[in-house]
């Protein structure tokens, strides 16, 4: 069971990262971003091309991939979100689904339907944690996510820019009147969300096969659940929600993973948690804006 728990925590941290991006965009634009996971997939393909095809060092490939997805996020805001700034939110919601579909189609056209793979960033013997052998790659993922989580905690509670992002989500008119400029903040929010998705993408890339839309298929729903469980407007809540969903999935795999009667029981358990949270605590675990 310990193995499932440890893996659950690591997967959960990735969901938490994606969920944080979802919450950020939700706070800034009051819309669920269907393209959030695709920011990750595209970054993973960028990394694949740079590392496997261009033979760049791992760190350089990952950094450039994240930079690339930051530009994609910026362009999505400029070309799609900004023209819809005053449009009904449902229009923007459909637009984000459109962005996801376009990105997936582009992957089919450019990369093709066959799965590809990136070698792990770190090789070597696994490390023993709670009697569970964890691969160096997964440890790297966890380490990066913990540092990132702490960094974001600092950014959103101490820095002017981080606080301005929170302010924009709470009172757009007052933000404008303080001279912060909601449109400039919108650019920042979408770029930052793309970077968060991109980091999740490049970290996950070496752990499995890359195929068009893989993160939307495997990670978007757990991340969305994590965001809702955390309270949809709370950034720390999203990260915690991610961990909870990861652990729930891990336990589901342990208890029902080999069941042939209930296939996909682990995911079923995730949705059971979602329904339970919505019934018992509809505001989410951290039910206030943060």
């Amino acid at each position: 069971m310990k193995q499932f728990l440890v893996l659950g925590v690591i997967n959960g941290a990735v969901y938490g990262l994606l969920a944080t991006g979802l919450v950020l965009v939700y706070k800034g634009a009051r819309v669920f971003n269907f393209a959030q996971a695709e920011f990750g997939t595209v970054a993973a393909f960028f990394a694949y091309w740079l590392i496997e095809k261009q033979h760049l060092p791992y760190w350089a490939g990952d950094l450039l991939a994240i930079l690339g997805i930051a530009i994609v996020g910026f362009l999505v805001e400029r070309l799609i979100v900004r023209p819809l700034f005053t449009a009904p939110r449902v229009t923007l919601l459909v637009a984000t689904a459109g962005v996801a579909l376009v990105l997936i189609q582009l992957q089919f056209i450019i990369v093709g339907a066959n799965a590809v793979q990136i070698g792990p960033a770190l090789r070597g013997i696994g490390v023993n944690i709670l009697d569970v052998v964890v691969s160096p790659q997964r440890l790297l993922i966890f380490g990066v996510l913990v540092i990132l989580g702490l960094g974001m905690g600092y950014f959103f509670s101490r820095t002017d820019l981080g606080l301005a992002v929170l302010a924009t989500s709470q009172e757009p008119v007052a933000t404008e009147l303080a001279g912060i400029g909601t449109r400039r903040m919108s650019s920042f929010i979408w770029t930052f969300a793309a970077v968060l998705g991109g980091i999740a993408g490049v970290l996950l890339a070496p752990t499995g096969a890359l195929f068009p839309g893989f993160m939307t298929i495997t990670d978007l729903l757990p991340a969305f659940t994590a965001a809702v469980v955390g309270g949809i407007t709370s950034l720390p809540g999203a990260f915690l929600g991610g961990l909870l969903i990861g652990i729930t999935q891990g336990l589901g795999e342990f208890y029902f993973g080999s069941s042939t009667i209930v296939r996909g029981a682990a995911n079923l358990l995730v949705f059971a948690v979602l329904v339970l949270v919505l019934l018992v605590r509809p505001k989410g675990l951290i039910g206030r804006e943060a």
Partner: protein
Amino acid sequence: MPLLELTDVRTGYGSLPVLHGISFAVEQGELAVMLGLNGAGKSTTMMAIAGLLKTWSGSISFEDASVGRLDTAKRVQRGIVLVPEGRRVFPALSVTVNLRLGAWVRRRDRKALKERMEKVFEYFPRLAERRNQLAGTMSGGEQQMLAVGRGLMADPKLLLIDEASLGLAPKTAQELFQTVKQISKTGVTVIMVEQNAGALDVADRAFIMEKGTLIFQGAGDEELKATDLRAAYLG
């Protein structure tokens, strides 16, 4: 040379005109009060000056330069700051953070920012007591103090305050007017939009608006006392 001058300003929402050619000027250091009933166009005038609403025609000049085409952020940088109707504090952020964000355009100068925050706490000691409290959990009067304080953090030359007394107890409203008077005495020019005629007690200049036009403007103790403004305002 007036600090702010509006000449024949027309604007509205969508195709609906609200201001039908407003012209007035405010001198440096004055405390002007703009009275009028609901729908008279007072808030629209403030939004046009602050840059939240584009003007259809006419001109707005500030410190002898046209600002009519600048966006809100640039106007804040020039020193035009609006404290909006309904307070609009950042509810899930603390008093200190609300104030800090008010100083966004001057955030680089940390020392001056700290001094201005202390000054705000002097004007509104209640805010100092509640500096770590979330703004959304404070009373209406305290939120209004915070909204004015946040406006001051931008170091304004012209402070526009829209309906500060709305929903406040009469005593609290009077205290707020007195504090605004103190602020104006430090050299900050203030335009207070009000439905509460009690604000006239602290005014150097008064405007009365009706249906998108100015029906009265006057300045100086004598002129303000000679005219029965309360009667004019109430029609």
